[in-house]
């Protein structure tokens, strides 16, 4: 089971999710719990306890009612309706859900939505200039840097993050920069070329 889907544990850590719950003054925790003993797992979270947050996504503010345990990925996809970021594993192994949080690449499946409040979140949709592809996306299209395309928005975001931090990466930098993003179709060779091409396009190179 994915760690992001596990219920919060009252493990005494000062910034535990339970701590957040309590500090939000949700005094009803436990009251609505039916009398059950779960077959496995420590306890059941009272479903439906939600908190209001406002996320900054692609330059706009999105208010949302979320459960504290919800991942940023779930909120982006199911609540906000931005489905470019994909779930590949739900456990921080594949990078299909990569988004930028304040310009840093983050696995949205391991980021709680409530943690992301106050940060500037960028998804692949946010790289578009209206209907036009952004330079990193354009580079992926030109170099055929995908097959099934499912991991592609994540690869694009990893590349975007790499190039924002390092506009002229070496081949080693490129491999390292996208090594957190799996591609089961095995399109890595062209992904490396896409990163090179994106660096060119972003620095105003030949188009």
């Amino acid at each position, binding site marked *: 089971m994915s760690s992001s889907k596990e219920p919060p544990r009252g493990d005494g850590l000062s910034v535990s999710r339970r701590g957040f719950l309590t500090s939000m003054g949700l005094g009803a925790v436990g009251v609505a719990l039916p009398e059950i003993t779960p077959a496995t797992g420590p306890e059941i979270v*009272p479903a439906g306890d939600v908190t209001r947050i406002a996320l900054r996504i692609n330059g706009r503010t999105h208010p949302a009612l979320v459960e504290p345990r919800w991942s940023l990925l779930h909120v982006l996809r199911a609540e906000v309706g931005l489905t470019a970021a*994909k*779930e590949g*594993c739900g456990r921080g*192994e594949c990078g299909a859900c990569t988004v930028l949080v304040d310009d840093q690449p983050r696995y949205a499946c391991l980021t709680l939505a409530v943690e992301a409040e106050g940060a500037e979140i960028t998804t692949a949709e946010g790289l578009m200039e209206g209907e036009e592809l952004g330079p990193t996306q354009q580079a*992926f299209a030109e170099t*055929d840097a995908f097959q099934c395309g499912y991991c592609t928005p994540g690869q694009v975001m990893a590349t975007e993050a790499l190039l924002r931090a390092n506009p002229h990466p070496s081949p080693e930098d490129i491999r390292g920069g996208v090594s957190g993003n799996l591609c089961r179709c095995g399109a890595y060779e062209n992904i490396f070329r896409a990163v090179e091409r994106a660096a060119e396009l972003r620095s105003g190179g030949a188009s």
Partner: protein
Amino acid sequence: MIRDAEGRYWEEGQEVFETPQAAPDPKPWSETRVVGTRRMRVDAYERVSGTAEYPSDLLLPGMLYGAVLRSPHPHARVLSVDATAAEALPGVRAVISGFTPLNAALRPHEQLIRETLFGPVRRFEGEAIAAVAADTPYHAHDALRALKVEYEVRPFVSDERDALAEGAPLVHEEGNRVGDASTYARGDVAAGFAEADVVLEEEYRTECQIHVPMETHGCVASWDGDTLTVWESTQGVFPVQAGVARGLGMPLSRVRVIGKYMGGGFGSKLSMGDYTLMAALLAKVSARPVKLFITREETLLSAGNRPPSNTRIKAGVKRDGTLTALDLSATGTGGAYRAGGTGGLDFLVRELYRCSNVRTETQDIYVNAGPARAMRAPGYPQAAWALEQMMDALAEAIEMDPVALRLKNISLVSQVRGRPYTTTGLEACIRDGAEAFGWEAAKARAEATRDAPVRRGVGVAAAMWGAGGGGPPATVILKLFSDGSLNLNLGASDIGTGTKTIMAMVVAEELWVDPDTIQIEHADTGTTQYATASGGSKTVPTESPAVRAAALDLKKQVLEIAAAQLGVDVATLALREGKVVTTSGPSQEVPLARLNDLRRRGVVVGVGYRGPNPEGKMVNPFAAHFCEVEVDTRTGRVELVRFLAAQDSGRVMNRTTYDNQVHGGVTMGVGFGMTEKRVLDRGQTGRLVGHGWTDYRIPTAMDVPTSLEVLPIDLGDREANSTGAKGLGEPATIATAPAIANAVHHALGVRITATPITPAAVLEALAAQRQESTR
């Protein structure tokens, strides 16, 4: 079984292997303008922008999320499932298990629910116990945790090497052998070995490889009265439609399956899964659309695999390199159910090299583990791992170059099927591949590093694929609109191989139109024509001739319309750049958009069918892979310095996607040979060890060859079909792992006969070598 008008038997919902033949197939093009060039995919924009809608992206009003409880035991009887607490949780809308009271919606599916989906005896870890639907995925997983299940845990056997031992726990009452061994023989192997100068015998093992596509398996199911629509992540919407219709007892016309985008399958999504029927039932009970995608962990347990293999090969060769005998015995396992655990394991030994005396025996065995599903050339990478290492060992034993030994044993006919190939690129793949790779120079360079701590080695391996020719049925419709733009309507899925783009290129080639003016409608049983699943490396050789036939049918009608309008003989007309032009007599032309009859009708429709394959011939793709490695003898790390894949897949349709597909095949072969291994806790619990990609390691950007070159070998196949294309996806992965193993052997002088070649395996092999030399 139903008998049709012509007296042929077919089963409802099964593939019908005959389609009407519209016209005799034309010869393949001798020159092309579009086909064979490099062209950006028609759906590149959607895939890089994030607007491509995968089934798992779909959001429908009122949609619920499904989740599946799966057995934690490799073998158990389910005594009870208590859903009381789960059903009482807020947000939970439906729970179905083998113990669910059946209401009116479920009663017709009693057998499906009680015996098939949630049967009483669960024979592998990950077999389903119950399914739930809830408002969010979180609520659904809360519900799973609240289900109370009582199990009677039974003894298990999780490894096929233990399963035939006396007293081994039985997976099925009838025993752990899946029927009798399959055998094959030609010639006389004993005589062949007697004739040989050198006879070698070796055992090889390959570990279980799992597909793990990036998008997990699943669908969205939605009912509208008696009609069910399923958006499934699949390689073939029509097989899913047939499976759902059969499973739920519905007519095909009431099941619509849509699968325009999908996040990888590699054989594991050729047909529906248990999740498809569960989603449909949950949607029916809850009267809501249900999205059910399984978790990553479930893909490791219950969504198929390339099963492990154990292969012993005994081979005889003369000093001049002539193979005299090949004898193979192999075991494998399709898991807990009949799933072709040894399918394809012996084909390369029977077919790849010329040899008069061959004997094979394969035995499929039941174990308490997830069933196999077809995985990218089922059986072949396992077989190549064994055979191609044996060829290398034979070459060494007779002091012959491994490339030369392979070239010495080329067959121009299919020895298994007794028919010639339309084209055999095996020799060209090996010879031209070796030259492009710089085999001799690389070999010499590698041999100069023998005393260094970091040593180089080169390796070669060859392959063929026993399918890859495609064939009927395929029906394609091409519509010309009044402004000269087109709609191409085909049922096939584009699983990331660039099918749509290639088909648009075929239309553009035949009609001389801009490929960008072609809109493509595909992979929807409600709106497109029957197609088989995209698998078996047959989509392009199956569909492209049908697309070409549709274009020719359309062209014929358009030229007739133009001939009437211009008052000329139709034979003098041709299509050029969106216009009808005269090719002889007085020069006249009319743009497609100015054809009066087309404008009056609004549309002209061309229909194309896939004709039969050439009689008495075999259509097969071939390949040879070359690899240069650098092995650090201190750390055991193997670096893939250089890789070249020579592929005979007939005509190159789109060089861009051709190269990409070969890159992918090689990468998956790297995983098979170097990183991937399903580990079951064989001795203690029988359960999967590790539950994600951290433990089940697929190649990352750090694992692929530093340089990866693709060399297409196109012999101009005039017979295979009307486009001359053969399959590519599977032949691109078969030879990779043994080429690496042979290169590692060349570097170190030790042979690693079991996958995966990890640093630990290299260090162990080196340690054994040192022990051997000091003995």
